[in-house]
C-alpha cells in the first residue's frame, strides 16, 4: 500500500499579543495510505482543523515534516482538495461555475472543463441543478456542490473538515451513506480520504482508522482500527462497542487532566469552559431520571439530551469539577451532592453550588477570598486575568474567568460588573 501523506512531528503555534506563542499542534504524527478513510477525532479547538489546513497547504508548519507523495508541502498542491464545513461556495457563481472553477485554475481547455464538471455533477446527484445559485439550494445540496467541486479536480486526497456538521441529522446521514456507497463502488476519482470530525458515530460509520486528537497542544494520542464491513449498521453491537471504546478513550484522558486541576495551586492548569448553570442543572436532572437513576453511559445520555460530544464534555467536566458527578470508564455518575441538587429548589441549588465552588474550585474560592480580604470588597478584573494568563492563553484565561463569573453569579458567591470590569460582593438591588 502506498503512503500518500506522511506527517512527522508537526508543530504549529500562533503568535500572541504580549506573551509567548500559543502552541496549537505539537508532535503530530500521521500517515495516510492509498485506499483508506482516516478520521481525526477531537473536540473543537483541539487543533485538528489547523492540522487539516497545514495539509491543504493553506498554512505552513513551524516544525517537523509534512510530505505529500514524498515531497514536502509548501503551498496548495493540485492533488489535495478540500470540502469545507460551511461549504464555502461562491454565492455569485452557479452550481456549474462553482464546480468548474478548480478546473479553470488548472488551465484545461473549455470543452474538457465542461465535460468533467458535468460528469462530477452527475456523479454526486446534482443533475438539473447546474444553473442554480447556491442560495437557491438546501444545505445538503450545497454540500453536494462542495463535494463535486472537490472531486472534479480528481485529487489523490480528499480532505473533509467537519463536512456534515452544518447539516441536519437526516441530511447528514443521507449524504454520508451516498458518499460511502460511491467510495465502496470505487466510483470516486480519489485515492484516500482524511475526515475531521467531532462526531464519534460518524467516525465509526465511515472510517477505516480513527485517530484521537488531544488538545492543548493538539496531537494524535490513540489510533483505533475500525474493522467492520460496509455498509455499517448503527445498531450492530460491534458498532456500539467501537463507539463506547472511543468514548472511554476520550473521557479517560479528560479524567487524567481533571486530577491535575485539583492541585493545591489555585490557578487551574487547563482552561475551564463557561458552561451555563442551565446546562449543568439540565444534565443533572437528566441523570436523575428513573431510567438512569443517577448513572448513565455517556453515549446514551448524549443521545438522550441530543448533544454531541464536544457539547457534552464541557458540561460533564463541569459536573465533575464541582463534584456533582463522577466520570469513570465512559460512565457519568451523580454524587451524593449531585442527587441532592436534583431534588432541591432554586435557593438550595444555589447553596449547593456555592459550597461546591468554595470547596472544589480553588480559583473561585480564591476570588472570593481576595474580595473578602480587601477593605472595599472590590477588585478589578485585571487582578485575576493576569494570574490566569501566566498559565494560559489570553482567550483561555478569558473563558475561564467567564466560567467563574457565570457560576458565581448563579451561586451568589460574588458579583461582577462588566461595564467597570470589577468584581465585588455587592448584590445589586
Amino acid at each position, binding site marked *: 500500500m502506498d503512503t500518500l501523506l506522511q506527517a512527522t512531528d508537526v508543530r504549529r503555534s500562533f503568535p500572541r499579543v504580549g506573551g509567548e506563542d500559543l502552541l496549537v499542534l505539537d508532535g503530530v504524527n500521521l500517515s495516510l495510505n492509498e485506499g483508506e478513510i482516516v478520521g481525526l477525532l477531537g473536540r473543537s479547538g483541539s487543533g485538528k482543523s489547523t492540522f487539516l489546513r497545514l495539509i491543504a497547504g493553506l498554512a505552513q508548519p513551524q516544525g517537523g515534516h509534512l510530505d505529500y507523495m514524498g515531497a514536502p508541502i509548501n503551498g496548495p498542491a493540485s492533488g489535495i482538495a478540500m470540502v469545507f464545513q460551511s461549504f*464555502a461556495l461562491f454565492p455569485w457563481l452557479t452550481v456549474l461555475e462553482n464546480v468548474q472553477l478548480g478546473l479553470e485554475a488548472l488551465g484545461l481547455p473549455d470543452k474538457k472543463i465542461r465535460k468533467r464538471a458535468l460528469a462530477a455533477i452527475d456523479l454526486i446527484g446534482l443533475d438539473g441543478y447546474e444553473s442554480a445559485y447556491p442560495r437557491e439550494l438546501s444545505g445538503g445540496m450545497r454540500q453536494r456542490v462542495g463535494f463535486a467541486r472537490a472531486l472534479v479536480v480528481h485529487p489523490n486526497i480528499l480532505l473533509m473538515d467537519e463536512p456534515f456538521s452544518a447539516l441536519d441529522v437526516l441530511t447528514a446521514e443521507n449524504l454520508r451513506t451516498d458518499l460511502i456507497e460511491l467510495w465502496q463502488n470505487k466510483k470516486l476519482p480519489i485515492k484516500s480520504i482524511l475526515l475531521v470530525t467531532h462526531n464519534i458515530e460518524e467516525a465509526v460509520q465511515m472510517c477505516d482508522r480513527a485517530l484521537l486528537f488531544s488538545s492543548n497542544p493538539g496531537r494524535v494520542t490513540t489510533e483505533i482500527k475500525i474493522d467492520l464491513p460496509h455498509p455499517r449498521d448503527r445498531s450492530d453491537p460491534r458498532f456500539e462497542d467501537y463507539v463506547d471504546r472511543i468514548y472511554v478513550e476520550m473521557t479517560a484522558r479528560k479524567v487524567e487532566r481533571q486530577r491535575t486541576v485539583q492541585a493545591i495551586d489555585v490557578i487551574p492548569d487547563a482552561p475551564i469552559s463557561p458552561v451555563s448553570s442551565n446546562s449543568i442543572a439540565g444534565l443533572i436532572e437528566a441523570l436523575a431520571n428513573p431510567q438512569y437513576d443517577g448513572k448513565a453511559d455517556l453515549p446514551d445520555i448524549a443521545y438522550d439530551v441530543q448533544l454531541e460530544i464536544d457539547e457534552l464534555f464541557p458540561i460533564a467536566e463541569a459536573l465533575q469539577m464541582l463534584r456533582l458527578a463522577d466520570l469513570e470508564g465512559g460512565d457519568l455518575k451523580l454524587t451524593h451532592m449531585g442527587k441532592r441538587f436534583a431534588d432541591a429548589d432554586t435557593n438550595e441549588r*444555589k447553596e449547593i453550588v456555592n459550597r461546591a465552588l468554595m470547596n472544589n474550585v480553588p480559583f473561585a474560592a480564591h476570588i472570593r477570598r481576595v474580595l473578602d480580604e480587601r477593605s472595599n470588597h472590590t477588585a478589578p478584573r485585571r487582578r485575576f486575568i493576569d494570574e490566569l494568563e501566566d498559565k494560559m492563553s489570553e482567550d483561555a484565561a478569558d473563558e475561564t474567568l467567564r466560567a467563574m463569573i457565570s457560576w458565581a453569579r448563579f451561586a451568589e458567591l460574588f458579583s461582577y460588573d462588566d461595564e467597570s470590569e470589577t468584581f465585588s460582593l455587592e448584590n445589586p438591588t
Partner: protein
Amino acid sequence: MKLFPPVSIETRRLLPRSWDLLAGIFVLGAIIFCAEASREVIQPLSSLARHPVSLDPANLPNYAFRTALRMLVALAFSLIFTFTYATWAAKSKRAGMLLVPLLDILQSIPILGFLSVTLVFFLSLAPGRILGAEFAAIFLIFTSQAWNMAFSFYQSLRTVPIELDEAGRTFGMSGWSRFWQIEVPFGMPQLIWNMMMSMSGAWFMLVASEAFTVGNTSITLPGIGSYIAAAVQAKSLTAIFWAIGAMLVVIVIFDQLLFRPLVAWADRFRIDAEPGDEEAESWALKMYRRSRLIDAIGTPFDILMRRSYKIAPPKSKTQIVTKSIIPPWLAVGLWYAILVVFGAYVVWRVTSFVGAALGFSDVVGAFLRGMATLTRVIVLIALASLIWVPVGIYVGLRPHLTRVVQPIAQFLAAFPANLVFPVAVSLILLWNANPDIWLSPLMVLGTQWYILFNVIAGASALPREMRDAAANFQVKGWLWWKKVGIPAVMPYYVTGAITASGGSWNAAIVAEVASWGNRTLHAYGLGAYIFDATVAGDFHRIVLGIFVMSFFVVVVNRLFWRPLYWYAERKFKMT
C-alpha cells in the same frame, strides 16, 4: 435568601476617582471655551469686519474651538432631525411617500443652494449680531451632515426585527419607550458610522460654510474654514500647513473623545454580535464610565428618561375600533392626488420664478453645464474605481494593513478641497493646462475614499473558508480577481460608488472654481455656474442651477445606481 454579607460600600461612592480628574479638566476646558465663544457671538456683525481673520497661528486654537463647536451643534441638530424626520418617514406610510424622495432631493442640493435662500432668514433671527451669521454657518454645516444620517436611521427603522417590536408591545411599552429602548439602540451602530461620515463631509465643505458671499453680503466667521479661505487669499503656504495641522488635531480629538467611545459603546447594540468578537476599546469611554463627575451630570437625564418611559399614553378605545368612513384605496388615491397637485404647484412656482428673468436659452445652458459636470463625475468615479477597488481588496484582505489605511483614508476624506487649491492652481498655470479637465480631480478629492472604505469593508468580510477554498483550488491571478475578489466586494463597492458620486456633485461647487491669491480658475460646469450665481446674488440663476443639479442627481440615482444596487445586492450578497 441572601448569600452576600452585609457590607456597606456606599461611603466610597462619594470619593472622586482618578478618572474624575481627567474628566474634570475636560469639562472645565469646554466650559471656559464656551463662555468665550458665547461672549463673542453676541457682538454686532460689524465687529467681524473690524477683527478680520488673522493668519497668526496663535489664533488657531480659538478658531479650532469655534469650528468644533459649530460642528457639534450642527451634529446635535442633525441628530434631532434624524430622530424626527426619519421616524416620521418610517412610521407613516403616506408621509414616507413624500419624505423619502424629498430626502433624496435635499441630499442633491449643494451647500451654496441652501445658503443663498436661507441667509436672510438666519440673519434676521438675531438682527445685527454675529449670532445670526453663526446660525447660518451652523445650518450650512447641518446640511452637509444630516441627510445621510437620516437615511441610515430610516433604513434601520425599517429593518427592526419584528420580534423585538412585538416583545416591546407585549410588555406594554409605549411608543416613546419603544423608540428609545428598541429602535434607537438597534439603529445606533449604523447611525454612528454615518455620523463619522457626516463629520468628514462637514470638514470638506467647511470653507464654504464659514466664509461666504451672497450678493452684497460677505461674512467671514472666525474658524478654521475662514482661516483656510484667508490663507488661500493671501497665498500663504505656511498658513495652509498650519490649517492642516489644526484640522488634524481637531479630527484626532473628535475621534478620541467622541467617535471612538461611541463606537465602543454602540458595540453592545450590535444584534449580530457573537461572544468572542473583538470588542472595540476606548480609553475615553472608560473615563466617561468610571468618572463620578460625568455620572453625576448624566444621572438626572437618566432618571428623567426612565420616568418618561413609564408615562403610558392614554389608552384610547377608539384605537381598536377605528374604522374610517373612507375606504383605504380612496384615501391612498386622495393622498396621491394631493402630492401631485402640490408637486405641480412647486414646479409651476419654480418655472414662473425662473422664467420671469431667464429665457429658454438659459435653461439649455444650465443643462449643458449639467452634462459637462455629469461627464466629469462619470469619468472620475470610473477612474477612482479602477484605482481604489484593487487597492481596497488588497488592503481589506490584510487586517494589519487595514488598521493603518483606514484612519488615513478617513482623514483624507475630510480634507477640504480648498487646501489643495494652491497645488492645483499653480500646476495648471505652470503647464498652461485646460482647467475644464484638470480642475476635475478636485471633485473626487474627498469622495473617492468612500469607494476605498467600502471595498476594504467588503474584502475583510470575505469569509476565511471562501478564501481557503480559492487557495485550495489554486485560483490565482486574473481568474481570482474575476471570480472571487471583485464579485465579493461588488455590493460594498456599489454602496461606496453611490455615496462618492452623490458627494462629487455636491463637491462641484468647490471644485469647479479654484483660486489661489488673485488667480481664479473656472471650469465649464454646473458647480461653477451655481458658485458664480451665488457670489453675484443672482437668485434666478441660483434656483435654476439647483433645480438642474437636483434633477441630474435624482435621475442618475434612479436610472443607474438604484438598479445597479439591487442587482449587486441580489447576485453578490453573501447569504
